[in-house]
């Protein structure tokens, strides 16, 4: 069936050749997380790919049913553990919509700031692996430097580098000192931008890198939409879909920034969009710091929150795409049902369509472009 795929060009007929099944992952040195991909190979050409997921299933959705709304915050941190603030924010927005909670104005700015900072760290982590997947080890170490620096800022604010537990219903946990904000601003404006230029020299302009990415696994907007692909992967096909603009939350509408797109739809376009987003996010974060109003960072919310009966679905632009949080409330202090729509899951489920016909060497170049996080897929 797959052998008839139009992109499998050189399957010979007449001779008797057998395809081999190769288990890529979950214990492969360059697999991102515990993903397991069953590849059917003819020589080095992929005939079929079957993602096997579930190695990191922790039952987060079920666990949430046994915790109060406030206690669930630590669970959403662990959904997509490299884009924590985005998850927290999406969850907060869902609960705030359900219980009709007002959010403090300064908190909205802080949320926007930290969501963009975490987008930067997440993209930096992706940037480390995109080089590594193609055999370049140096970019990995280089991109870890700013990532660690931004984690230092997170640590100064929340006391935790990876699992912040910072957002609260109606605001954020604590205010941030102006000196701290200035430090972030200075870092983003000078050192970070300089590093990004270095990265462009090291990888973006590299002849071998471009030749490996160009024209690889090209998808159209129609295909991406039909597979449910969102985020940078969708924007790389030329579709300017960005919930930060479209869903209007936070203070994004008051800031001057552009949705980053690329029309080519190939692996290089996905790379370019993310690299451009790294700069754009820094721009947004800097504007947040410059224009942040003073004031309270939290509104008065009941300690044990009991939202009225009902259900809510909130869409949020996380680093990987459209993150959906669905909550059903039965009027008690615990959610009756908690469900996550994972953008990484949708992006990975597009891979079996994108991989057939490609070389095994391209597997990670395509796979890395999906920028998946298994913790969010398996939950």
């Amino acid at each position, binding site marked *: 069936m797959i052998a008839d795929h139009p992109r499998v060009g050189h399957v010979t007929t007449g001779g008797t050749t057998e395809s081999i099944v190769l288990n890529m992952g979950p214990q492969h040195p360059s697999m991102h997380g515990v993903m397991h991909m069953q590849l059917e190979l003819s020589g080095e050409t992929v005939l079929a790919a079957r993602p096997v997921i579930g190695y990191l299933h922790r039952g987060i959705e079920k666990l949430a049913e046994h915790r109060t709304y406030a206690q669930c915050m630590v669970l959403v941190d662990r959904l997509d553990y490299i884009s924590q603030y985005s998850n927290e924010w999406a969850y907060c927005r869902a609960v705030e919509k359900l219980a009709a909670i007002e959010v403090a104005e300064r908190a909205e700015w802080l949320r926007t700031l930290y969501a963009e900072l975490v987008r930067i760290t997440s993209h930096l982590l992706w940037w480390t692996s995109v080089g*590594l997947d193609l055999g370049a080890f140096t970019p990995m170490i280089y991109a870890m430097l700013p990532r660690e620096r931004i984690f230092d800022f997170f640590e100064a604010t929340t006391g935790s580098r990876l699992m912040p537990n910072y957002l609260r219903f109606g605001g954020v946990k604590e205010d941030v000192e102006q000196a701290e904000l200035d430090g972030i601003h200075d870092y983003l404006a000078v050192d970070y931008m300089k590093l990004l230029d270095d990265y462009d020299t090291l990888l973006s302009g590299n002849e071998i890198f471009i030749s490996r990415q160009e024209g690889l696994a090209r998808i159209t907007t129609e295909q991406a939409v039909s597979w449910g692909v969102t985020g940078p992967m969708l924007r790389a096909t030329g579709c300017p879909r960005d919930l930060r603009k479209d869903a209007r939350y936070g203070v994004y509408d008051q800031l001057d920034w552009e949705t980053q797109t690329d029309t080519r739809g190939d692996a290089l376009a996905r790379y370019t969009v993310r690299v451009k987003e790294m700069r754009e996010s820094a721009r947004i974060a800097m504007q947040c710091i410059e224009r942040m109003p003073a004031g309270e960072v939290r509104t008065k919310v009941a300690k044990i929150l009991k939202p009225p009966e009902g259900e809510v679905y909130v869409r949020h632009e996380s680093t990987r795409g459209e993150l959906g949080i669905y909550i059903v409330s039965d009027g008690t202090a615990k959610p009756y049902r908690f469900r996550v729509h994972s953008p990484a899951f949708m992006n990975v489920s597009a891979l079996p369509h994108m991989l057939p016909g490609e070389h095994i060497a391209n597997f990670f170049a395509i796979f890395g472009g999906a920028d998946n996080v298994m913790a969010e897929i398996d939950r």
Partner: protein
Amino acid sequence: MTPRMFVFQLLGVLGLIVVLGLNIIIMDWWERKLIGHIHVRPGPMHTGFHGILQPFADMVKMLAKEDVVPTEADKLFFWAGPMIAVVPAFLAMVVLPLAPGFVLADIGHGLFFVFAMQTIMPFGFTLIGWAAHNKWSLVGGLRSAAQLISYEIPMLISALAVVMVAGSARLTDIVDAQATVWYVFKLPVAFALFLVTAVAEMNRTPFDMTEAESELVAGIHTEYAGMKFGLVMMAEYTAMLVGSWMIVLLFLGGWNLWPLPPSPLWVVLKVYLLQSFIVWLRGTYPRLRMDRIMELSWKYLIPAALANLLAVGVLVIVFKGF
């Protein structure tokens, strides 16, 4: 052969083994250190001054490790594969001179002897990949066979240009012909081709297809542990030494560093500078794709090498003593 000569040659062979071991010790440490500093990290620091004893620590670790042989592996070739890879690399060094007269066997076709030995190495790598009975190793072994065979051809053709200009395939003659002007300036195209193909022959980044850890786990030596893995590494480091040494002899003037007097020191210096350059490549470049590597050789390097050979041939005839 007089007994005196026999003893001399025996000592020479032992000397070569020392050189081989010394090179692995130096390169093991130097590659870790250099690549570390390229990565903005210090590299090994805990074993002696700046990790100078790291190679010995590695060696002890490898020797102390359990010698694992997979049950499904072909026992004979699992054992013989690394040998077949390492012995020719070692044999090639027999004809490589360090100074005028300071060579174990100064044979008239020394250049071709080195190529002949290099031709055997892919057998070793392919057997290593095949014998382990592992899909990753098999793909790595097949890749190495295809790659090494494809790159030997342009490598030899570009070296032929040197032979034509020097008028000899004896390596000492080739170096002596470069007393004032190195062939890298006379034959820049041949040098560029030889450098690229030599890096490919050494299985180094961006041509490290046999290992390709991001795709093939560890490629051919996925199943190898302990000293057998050490042998595979030895083969790779020795191939790197032989390749760099060849480039130095053919294009970089060997022991000549005009206007300074000729000295074996220059050979050592140039060889290690060149090996550092190859390590630097590893710190900078991503890996090429297998089909692109084959394409590069057959579609570009071989025609370019042939055209270069023709052009050099015409120049040699038109301007005698070019």
